[in-house]
Structure formats: structure tokens, C-alpha cells
């Protein structure tokens, strides 16, 4: 071989090696979305790095964690006296037995009347930027008081709630330990409930053990499902990272009149958009979607497979028919089931009298 030919070959090889890191970084999802599932273990290994769990729960500087705050918040969260009727607690709709949802298509509010949207889980809410399906609260502290004061939900005017709590002698010590020198008021109630909610975190699931290196933690079907999730099925475009949400808002093409985020942010692209929910413990949280219309995860996959139902300007450009095979749908279901953790039962608090 001539020297010039060898040099040319060497340049070609070096050029190919040089292009690999580029492919692995910014072009990764583009390639995955365009060409189907990742084709090599190297690509899968790179994808797995995106799903490492965070080391700690984020608490805001003005409401740092303490055990006393968690205890007070948990007590308030389960206490039905925060509602006007004395019979509805935060935990009525965010029930730990249903992975912190209620297992219903739509929540039930005051007077046993059905609400407009499904009760979202509070799992991993510590990592949410905006709360509620339409993102109308920008902190858990702000969110916590919303359903209490809502006339359709717990129907408790906040000043009346404060009076009720001030009239329960044993709450005084709990508040004093959690927020020394501060009164029992709307602010301390909201901060305590938010503190507790931040501690509600999904546990280690088989998926997490796989991400940590245990190859036997999930089945081969589930691994193919992971590839599809990040590739042909495109789920990752919204259900991204360890909590399987981009904390964003998308119109996924559900036929209904609820404009969701569009009611809060009147942009064309936000009409009919709803917050991306986490997929943690998802196979324990049927029914699905913001109105609970889909009974099973198989139905949800069929919905996305046909690119949603509504055709309108606000429909997310990511919503396109997927043409998944029956085997691919089965693999996706197998993957989704690996996101469920077996968590310890939650102890019911004793209420102050």
C-alpha cells in the first residue's frame, strides 16, 4: 500500500472516530426518533445516563426540611378538618393506597360532585416547577392552599381554616416545633403541607436497579421497551429523565373542550395543553390522562400510536402516528411496569384534639 493511500485511510478512520462523540451527544434523540430504536449497547448505555436518580430532595431556602415540618405537614395533609364539611382531606384525592391519586377518572369534590380533571399523583412533586394540570401554581406552597379554598373541592375559606386549626389545642405544639415564633396562619399551613409533599418520593424501582448496573433487574422485553421509549415511540420527547416528565405542557390531541394551560397562558400553542405527568408507579395509577378517559396503559399506548384524536393548530408537533407493532406495544408495557417501586405502607397520623 502506498504511503498516500495509508494516510488517506488513516484520515478516514480518525474522521469516523471523531464523529462518534458528536452522534452520542446532541444528535442522539434525533437519530433515535428518525431511525427507530437504538441499535447498539453503546447507545443504550449512553441513554441510561439520562435516567440516574437525583441524590437528594430539593427544598427551597425559605422552607428548608425538618422532621417537625414533615410531621406537621403530614398531619394537616390527612386531616379532614381542613375542609368545610370536615370530611375531605388532601389525602382523600391524594391517597397513598392509590400511589397518591384516587383511582377515579375525575376527582370528587364538595357535595360528592365530580370535578373536571383527574386527581394527579403528588409523587415526586418536589421536582415540579408548576403545579396543577394547567400549571397555575408556581410552588407547592402556593398549590397547597388551592384545593382547600376551592368552593368545588374542600370549600374551606382560608381564614375559617386558620380559626379551626387555632381552636385545636394540640396543633399549637406541632406548629411551634415546626415554625418557632410563627403563628398558625395560611402561610405556615401551606409551608408545612408543601414540606410533607416534598418527602413523597417514589422508591427504588426495578428500572433504577437496572440503571445502577443490575442487568437482571428488568426483562429483555422491558429493555426493548426502553429502546422504543427513547426511539421509535418517541415517549421521551415529553416523558424525559428519571422522573419521566419534562415538567412541560403539551396538547396531545384529546377531544374535549377543556383548554388546560391555554386558560392561564393565552398562546396558540398552549390551547388544550396539559402538564406532562410523571410515569413513576404508572401501572398502579389507572385510569389515565387528565380526564381519566383511558382505562388501561394499553389504551394509552393505542392513543399515542394513532397520534392522538383531535386535529387542531395547537396539537403538539410530536404527536404523529407511530405504527407500532403488537410486539412493540407489549415491550413498551413491559418497560412501563419496571417503573413501579414497592413502597412501605404509609402510617396514618393521629390527629391533634
Amino acid at each position, binding site marked *: 500500500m502506498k504511503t498516500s493511500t495509508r494516510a488517506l485511510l488513516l484520515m478516514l478512520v480518525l474522521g469516523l472516530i471523531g464523529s462518534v462523540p458528536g452522534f452520542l451527544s446532541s444528535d442522539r434523540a434525533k437519530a433515535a426518533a428518525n431511525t427507530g430504536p437504538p441499535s447498539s449497547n453503546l447507545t443504550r448505555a449512553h441513554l441510561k445516563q439520562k435516567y440516574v436518580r437525583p441524590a437528594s430532595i430539593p427544598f427551597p431556602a425559605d422552607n428548608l426540611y425538618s422532621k417537625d415540618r414533615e410531621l406537621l405537614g403530614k398531619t394537616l395533609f390527612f386531616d379532614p378538618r381542613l375542609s368545610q364539611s370536615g370530611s375531605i382531606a388532601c389525602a382523600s384525592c391524594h391517597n397513598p393506597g392509590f400511589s397518591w391519586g384516587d383511582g377515579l377518572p375525575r376527582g370528587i369534590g364538595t357535595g360528592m360532585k365530580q370535578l373536571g380533571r383527574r386527581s394527579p399523583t403528588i409523587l415526586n412533586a418536589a421536582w415540579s416547577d408548576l403545579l396543577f394540570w394547567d*400549571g397555575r401554581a408556581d410552588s407547592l406552597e402556593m398549590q397547597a392552599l388551592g384545593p382547600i379554598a376551592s368552593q368545588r373541592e374542600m370549600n374551606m375559606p382560608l381564614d375559617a381554616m386558620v380559626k379551626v386549626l387555632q381552636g385545636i389545642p394540640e396543633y399549637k405544639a406541632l406548629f411551634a416545633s415546626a415554625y418557632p415564633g410563627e403563628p398558625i396562619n395560611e402561610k405556615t399551613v401551606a409551608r408545612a403541607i408543601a414540606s410533607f409533599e416534598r418527602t413523597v418520593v417514589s422508591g427504588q424501582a426495578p428500572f433504577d436497579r437496572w440503571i445502577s448496573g443490575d442487568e437482571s433487574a428488568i426483562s429483555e422485553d422491558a429493555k426493548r421497551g426502553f429502546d422504543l421509549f427513547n426511539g421509535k415511540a418517541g415517549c421521551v420527547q415529553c416523558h424525559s429523565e428519571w422522573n419521566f416528565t*419534562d415538567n*412541560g*405542557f403539551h396538547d396531545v390531541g384529546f377531544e374535549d373542550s377543556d383548554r388546560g394551560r391555554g386558560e392561564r397562558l393565552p*398562546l*396558540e400553542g398552549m390551547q388544550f395543553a396539559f402538564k406532562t405527568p410523571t410515569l413513576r408507579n404508572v401501572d398502579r395509577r389507572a385510569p389515565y390522562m387528565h380526564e381519566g378517559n383511558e382505562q388501561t396503559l394499553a389504551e394509552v399506548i393505542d392513543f399515542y400510536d394513532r397520534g392522538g384524536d383531535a386535529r387542531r393548530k395547537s396539537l403538539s*408537533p*410530536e404527536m404523529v402516528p407511530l405504527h407500532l407493532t403488537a410486539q412493540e406495544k407489549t415491550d413498551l408495557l413491559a418497560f412501563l411496569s419496571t417503573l413501579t417501586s414497592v413502597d412501605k405502607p404509609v402510617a396514618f397520623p393521629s390527629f391533634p384534639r
Partner: protein
Amino acid sequence: MINRIIFGTLSVIALVTLSAFPLLAADHEITQQDRHFSQTEITIKVGDTISFKNDDEVTHNVFSTTPGMEFDLHRQAPGASSTIPFNKVGDAEVDCSIHPRMKLLVHVR
């Protein structure tokens, strides 16, 4: 005669100076990648433009609702770029409506 020459010269200088002003307006590029803007704050001069380039793998929707500085770039597919002029002094909060975590503060001076 001398006055005419001086007036003429000054006029030419004024014209050249005035016509040069638009050339002073600069364009600044802000990219979107991994659901983040490439920076969280930027200071620009009034009349400058910002080109928002979607270098990400997902759609973005850059907008501002700051009074007097409102704009909506609508959905930007990966690879797309749009340019917006900032013609008013002040601070504009620029966000992505799809991904509220993406925030950019534009100081127009």
C-alpha cells in the same frame, strides 16, 4: 461659499452618521439545548436583535408577555431559528411556554 461648503460637509457627516446607526445594531444568538437556553441573562442595546435557535431535539415555543415587549415565536421545530428585535429599553422575561423551566432575562439598555 465657505459656509455652504461647511454646511454641505456637515450634512454629509450627519447623513453618514445617521445611516450608520442601523449598522450598529447587533444580533445576538441564544440557542436552546437540553431544554435550556444557552444563557439565563443577556444585556443588549436598544435596537439589537436576538436570534433564537432551536438546537434541541424537541419543539420549543419562545415567548414574552412583558408589557410593551410581547412576542410569540410559536412552535420552533429542531433546527429552526427566529429573530426578534428589541426596540424598547427595559427588562424582558423570555420563556418557553412548553418548558417553563427555560427562562431568559433580556436587559435592553
